[in-house]
């Protein structure tokens, strides 16, 4: 074969390959479009039933029976809508959708999907199990907290929060170490578990990872765990991590017992790090006890802006004695620095109460 013939054959083969590839792409697109049109047609046919099931108060049995008996294609066409509605509707609508999912064996299929190779499928299955509050899936979902894909771990954590079984609290806290799941997702899940998460949270206060202790301290305050005040005071005074101490201060402010007031009053002292002092000054305002006024008054002239600022803002929340102290400071009784913070706090208070802030007196 001459070189000219060789080039001609190569070009012909290349042309053929390009043509075949083009035909495959065009066919693929056509098939996909046809499938989308078919799914849209099927969804339009079935969606009204789904809406009736979700929005109907009574007599949904017939609608439920028809939806449960749908063939796979029709069900797949409205499955995404059904899952979406399940997450956005409560009450009877949610109960009706949950029954539909049970009758179609969706939970069983989702549990099987948790072990599939595709990460999207695993994450989607975790989401569905969470929406269905399928408690039997808790062990499998807990296992997914160690999945190699972050989106699967996050979906599993969210699902565990929706199911809210106390046994998930420990594993959820553990996965904070090394940032395996975003902390806000874990916090929401732990809040959803509520007081039943307290044993795991208390145990986590002794975890080796500071990020775990910090979130445990924060959540104990958010769930109103008054029985954890001693553990939080210990963290506030002794924990080596400044983040843990500031979060413990915030939680003590939320819990607001007399022991919290004493601990926070101590924590505004100079032996504590500045971040902790500032947080404690703010938390004293959350406690709302006028007994904190002397400690906060002393902070108005603090050299650290955040400490003085938080103290002034807290005084606005302590009623008459707090406001009186701010007025006194605004008049210059505690120095120029304290006057500036006090004036700002009084102006913010006036705006919050719908009044015009008083103009500061002109400088002499």
């Amino acid at each position, binding site marked *: 074969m001459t070189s000219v013939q060789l080039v001609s054959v190569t070009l012909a083969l290349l042309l053929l390959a390009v043509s075949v590839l083009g035909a495959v792409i065009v066919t693929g697109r056509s098939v996909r479009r046809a499938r989308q049109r078919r799914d849209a047609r099927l969804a339009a046919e079935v*969606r009204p039933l*789904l*809406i*009736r099931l*979700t*929005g*109907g*108060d009574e007599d949904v049995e017939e609608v439920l029976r028809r939806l449960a008996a749908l063939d796979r294609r029709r069900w797949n066409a409205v499955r995404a*809508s059904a899952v*979406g*509605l399940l*997450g*956005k*509707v*409560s*009450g*009877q*609508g*949610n109960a009706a959708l949950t029954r539909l999912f049970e009758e179609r064996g969706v939970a069983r299929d989702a549990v099987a999907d948790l072990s599939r190779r595709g990460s999207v499928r695993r994450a989607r299955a975790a989401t569905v199990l969470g929406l269905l509050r399928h408690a039997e899936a808790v062990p499998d979902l807990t296992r997914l907290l160690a999945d190699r894909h972050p989106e699967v771990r996050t979906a599993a954590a969210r699902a565990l929060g929706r199911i809210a079984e106390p046994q998930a609290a420990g594993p959820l806290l553990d996965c904070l170490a090394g940032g395996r799941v975003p902390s806000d997702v874990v916090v929401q899940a732990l809040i959803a578990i509520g007081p039943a998460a307290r044993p795991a949270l208390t145990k986590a206060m002794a975890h080796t990872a500071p990020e775990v202790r910090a979130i445990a301290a924060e959540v104990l305050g958010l769930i109103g765990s008054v029985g954890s005040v001693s553990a939080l005071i210990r963290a506030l005074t002794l924990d080596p991590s400044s983040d843990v101490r500031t979060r413990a201060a915030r939680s003590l402010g939320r819990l607001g017992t007399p022991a919290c007031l004493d601990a926070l009053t101590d924590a505004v002292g100079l032996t504590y790090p500045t971040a902790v002092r500032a947080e404690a000054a703010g938390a004293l305002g959350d406690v709302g006890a006028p007994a904190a006024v002397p400690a906060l008054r002393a902070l108005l002239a603090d050299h650290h802006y955040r400490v003085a600022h938080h103290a002034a803002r807290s005084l606005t929340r302590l009623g008459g004695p707090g406001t009186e102290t701010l007025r006194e400071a605004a008049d210059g009784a505690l120095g120029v620095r304290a006057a500036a913070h006090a004036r700002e706090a009084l102006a913010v208070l006036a705006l919050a109460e719908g009044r015009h802030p008083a103009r500061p007196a002109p400088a002499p």
Partner: protein
Amino acid sequence: MAIVLVAEDDPDIRDLIVFKLRQSGHTVVPVGDGRSALGKVRDQLPDIVLLDVMMPGMSGIDVCRELRRDQQTADLPIILLTARAQESDVSVGLAAGADDYIVKPFSPRVLADRVQSVLTRARA
């Protein structure tokens, strides 16, 4: 019974609300975004407006503010609907002039009752 304008970008939720409110005997005007909501309100002057907060282009809170600025719609009853349950978001919505606030997930029956309740208050 009343004319209710429903602005919600999620078609499933929109259709569910439309179904529920029609079942309660209301005439419902559905739209899928904030700008269309403003246009429809000015065209049709509904008795009450139900606005999703998170909509593309113009949020429900922006629409609420616009409606409150316009003398023709300043007193129109408005209910905001959102997935955001934070206290601050509720405050922002109410400060924008909303009469009520419904958080997702919501019960369709309770939503219909709340619409009725706001309408009754507005007509009193």
